[in-house]
């Protein structure tokens, strides 16, 4: 069975995606919009299921690496070379799980687009998007990789601007594709440097030739790759596209982008820093760690400032990428010090958080999507009380919120715990420079966890709890059955990945120790038991929690009388409660914003209207405007942009419009060349 999946699963998957894309376009062309949507999503689901079966089989039963042969395309002789190692299999699994859930979720949401947008196009790019993500992971040469990478970027760009009649979306897509192409340019550069010394685009050749590269060029290649990949992963300060693009896309696409697309960058970082360059200097690990620390803490702080639910989630992606980078950076550092066991364990932390974040972020985006769908707005200040109208969705969001806050017994806790362990281990055993950076990483992780919890209390509270604050949320409706299925799947997995951590961690450990270039680990220890005398058992925690809850119930049952319960109004101090008296999302996070004003630079404007003009004793209205400037845009991007614009203006001046000048150019060119030649 497993062999069957390994043999045919991948091709079936690509076949399904190709068929889905084609059929979608064809049906769309014949005005069968609805059908094209459903068919494309169904085939995307089918393809993802096939990919999942393939990857899980490969993960569990694939003894050796799987190779696929090559054939020429265009001017390229060896374009299609694929290689599936267990790292790739793992990422395919992550991609396909989220793709299944997102596709099932999305298959019902087309009514709002009917007549306005071309659904056939959506299905095409949707399938292309998923297929190219899978391809990114298994490509075994730089050409194919870049091809798939670009395909991923372009397809997702079209998905972002799918609602192209909305001005904001077009702008968001623009920013996204710009940053994305910038990143590609850097990756280009990285591969070109590698090519220069290996003479090949093939990853297998690159892998063995990196050792003989001059140190300077190794570091140049790594730096270029890091910038290129960081821009895709959304590492601060290259994250600015993320909070723009993710909200603009339809929700199940946001789930895919945030849940898995940005992870492909993590995948490639592992390839570069651990697989290609096993001898990378430890400072690369520390750099990644530092980036992770900055991204996680700033990401969560920016998330706190948001009241657009999807932007909030997008900033949490920045934060979680930061956490993943903490693990990855630690892993690279350990590996470069020859601490293979610790390195593998830290990589497990990173991988575990990768899959966890994919699960709960996709879950959150999907449930946020059904909220947005039900209310028609992304503004949390207009929500409120949705838990009564959308009980299922709210439960799903709650699962996601608890998981992403890293609270037991869900999966988020496991990976945060693993990351902490790696960082503490590094603090304990590494040289002093590394110790300090690890300490910073640990500190940021400690604060990030708490702030994330605060942020999701705000998000969940403002969205689902208490009374409705705007008329939009008063008429919300529960998500459709398909949507529920998609969300439920992910929520279940969030729980399972928490409970089953004892099973999953050893599998990931195999990945962590799979890189042949590192000293082989003969016996793979359980990472949950691995470092020092630490101990951790999720089942035990769950038993404890369940016992605690049962005991509580028992206590109440035994001791409490049978008092009557009266349903009444919230205590209102004698005035009539209005929705305006509830705390707002902005108000909730105001204190944290003010505490971190040094980092966030909020602008606060207070305007007060008085009842009596003379004495100013009684205020009539008081308004506080809390503004948050986009620091990265203002301080980094705008100046760079202005610089290019200045250059462009200067270049434009070449075209003076005067014929004599043009002839002068030719004259001068001629003279200059003559002088240069015969100097």
């Amino acid at each position, binding site marked *: 069975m497993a062999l069957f999946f390994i043999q045919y699963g991948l091709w079936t998957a690509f076949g399904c995606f190709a068929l889905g894309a084609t059929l979608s376009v064809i049906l769309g062309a014949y005005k069968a919009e609805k059908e094209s949507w459903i068919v494309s999503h169904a085939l995307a689901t089918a393809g993802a299921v096939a990919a999942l079966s393939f990857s899980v089989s490969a993960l569990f039963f694939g003894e050796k690496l799987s190779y696929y042969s090559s054939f020429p395309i265009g001017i390229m002789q060896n374009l299609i070379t694929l290689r599936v190692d267990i790292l790739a299999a793992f990422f395919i699994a992550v991609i396909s799980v989220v793709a299944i859930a997102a596709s099932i979720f999305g298959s019902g949401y087309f009514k709002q687009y009917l007549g306005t947008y071309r659904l056939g196009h959506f299905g095409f790019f949707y399938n292309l998007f998923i297929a190219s993500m899978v391809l990114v992971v298994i490509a075994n040469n730089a050409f194919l990789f870049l091809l798939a990478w670009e395909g991923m970027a372009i397809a997702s760009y079209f998905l972002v601007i799918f609602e192209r009649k909305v001005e904001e979306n077009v702008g968001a897509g623009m920013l996204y594709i710009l940053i994305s192409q910038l990143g590609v340019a850097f990756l280009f550069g990285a591969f070109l440097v590698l090519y220069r010394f290996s003479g090949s685009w093939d990853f297998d050749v690159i892998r063995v030739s990196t050792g003989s590269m001059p140190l300077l060029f190794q570091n140049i290649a790594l730096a270029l790759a890091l910038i290129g990949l960081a821009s895709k992963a959304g590492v601060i300060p290259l994250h600015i596209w993320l909070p723009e693009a993710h909200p603009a896309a339809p929700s199940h696409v946001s789930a895919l982008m945030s849940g898995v697309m940005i992870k492909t960058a993590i995948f490639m970082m592992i390839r570069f820093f651990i697989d290609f360059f096993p001898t990378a200097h430890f400072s690369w690990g520390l750099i990644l760690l530092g980036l992770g620390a900055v991204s996680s803490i700033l990401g969560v702080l920016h998330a706190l400032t948001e009241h657009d639910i999807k932007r909030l989630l997008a900033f949490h992606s920045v934060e979680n990428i930061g956490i993943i980078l903490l693990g990855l950076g630690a892993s690279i550092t350990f590996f470069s010090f020859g601490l293979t066991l610790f390195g593998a364990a830290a990589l497990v932390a990173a991988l575990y958080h990768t899959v966890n974040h994919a699960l709960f972020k996709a879950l959150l985006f999907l449930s946020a999507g059904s909220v947005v769908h039900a209310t028609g707005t992304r503004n949390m200040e207009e929500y409120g009380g949705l838990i009564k109208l959308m009980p299922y969705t709210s439960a799903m969001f709650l699962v996601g919120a608890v998981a992403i806050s890293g609270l037991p017994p869900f999966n988020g806790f496991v990976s945060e715990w693993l990351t902490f362990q790696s960082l503490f281990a590094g603090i304990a055993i590494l040289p002093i420079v590394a110790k300090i950076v690890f300490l910073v990483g640990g500190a940021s992780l400690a604060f990030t966890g708490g702030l994330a919890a605060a942020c999701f209390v705000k998000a969940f509270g403002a969205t689902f709890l208490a009374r409705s604050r705007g008329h939009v949320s008063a008429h919300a409706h529960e998500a459709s059955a398909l949507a529920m299925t998609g969300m439920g799947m992910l929520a279940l997995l969030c729980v399972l990945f928490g409970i089953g951590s004892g099973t999953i961690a050893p599998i990931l450990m195999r990945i962590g120790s799979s890189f042949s270039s590192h000293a082989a680990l003969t016996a793979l220890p359980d990472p949950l038991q691995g470092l020092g005398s630490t101990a951790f058992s999720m089942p035990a925690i769950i038993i404890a929690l369940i016992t605690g809850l049962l005991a509580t119930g028992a206590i109440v049952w035994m001791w409490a009388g049978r008092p009557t319960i009266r349903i009444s109004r919230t205590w209102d101090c004698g005035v009539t409660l209005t929705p305006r008296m509830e705390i707002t999302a902005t108000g909730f996070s105001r204190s944290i914003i003010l505490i971190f004003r040094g980092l966030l630079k909020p602008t606060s404007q207070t305007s007060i209207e008085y009842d009596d003009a003379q004495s100013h004793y009684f205020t009539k209205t008081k308004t506080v405007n809390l503004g948050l400037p986009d620091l990265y845009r203002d301080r980094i991007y705008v100046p760079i942009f202005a610089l290019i614009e200045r250059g462009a203006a200067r270049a434009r001046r070449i*075209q003076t*419009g005067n*014929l*004599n000048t043009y*002839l002068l150019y030719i*004259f001068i060119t001629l*003279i200059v060349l*003559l002088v240069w030649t*015969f100097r």
Partner: protein
Amino acid sequence: MSTIPLVVLCAASVFALTLLMNIVRKNTTLVHLYLLQSLALAVALTSMSFVEGSSGLLYAAALTLAVKVVLAPAFFLRLIRKYEAHFSAASYINTPLSLLALTAITVFSYAFLYPQISGYVRSPSIPLLFAAIFGTLFLMVNRRGALAAIIGILSLENAVVLLAASLGIEHAFALELAVAFDIAVWVAIAAGFLGMMQRQFGAIDSAPLAMTHLTEE
């Protein structure tokens, strides 16, 4: 053969006429100078053909005489009368400075360019003709008028042909025919453009002053 005294004299006169073109203000004079320059070219080609005994050069001389000395100048003079464009549009830098620039060009040709290729071919006409080429280029750069541009290109062509001839390139009749035809067509097209300018702007020579709108922004 480029050392034939008559050829050198012709080369010198081509150069001198180029200098003069840079100085004169009237369009009719410009055309007349071009006529003289073409004549010098024809004379040079003829003399070369006699020395060489090559009939190709003789045909070339005859074609030059027909197209460049007779047809083109007559045509342009008629246009000038028709469009009443006797005076040329202004130049960018004044005459003394122009002469200074021309001096620099001449020095460049003699002192820099000629020593490079003198190992290959030694002839006093080479630097003169290079200077003439740069001089016509300078003419086109410096003068704003449409006619000046046209005459500049034609006289550049003269200088190039004479340079090639004095370097010793053999001329075939077919080639000369093609080139002469090219020039004839070119003149016709240029005249067509002059006509369009007259229609669009009401004046041919100052028209380029109005044609500076195609810029970025």
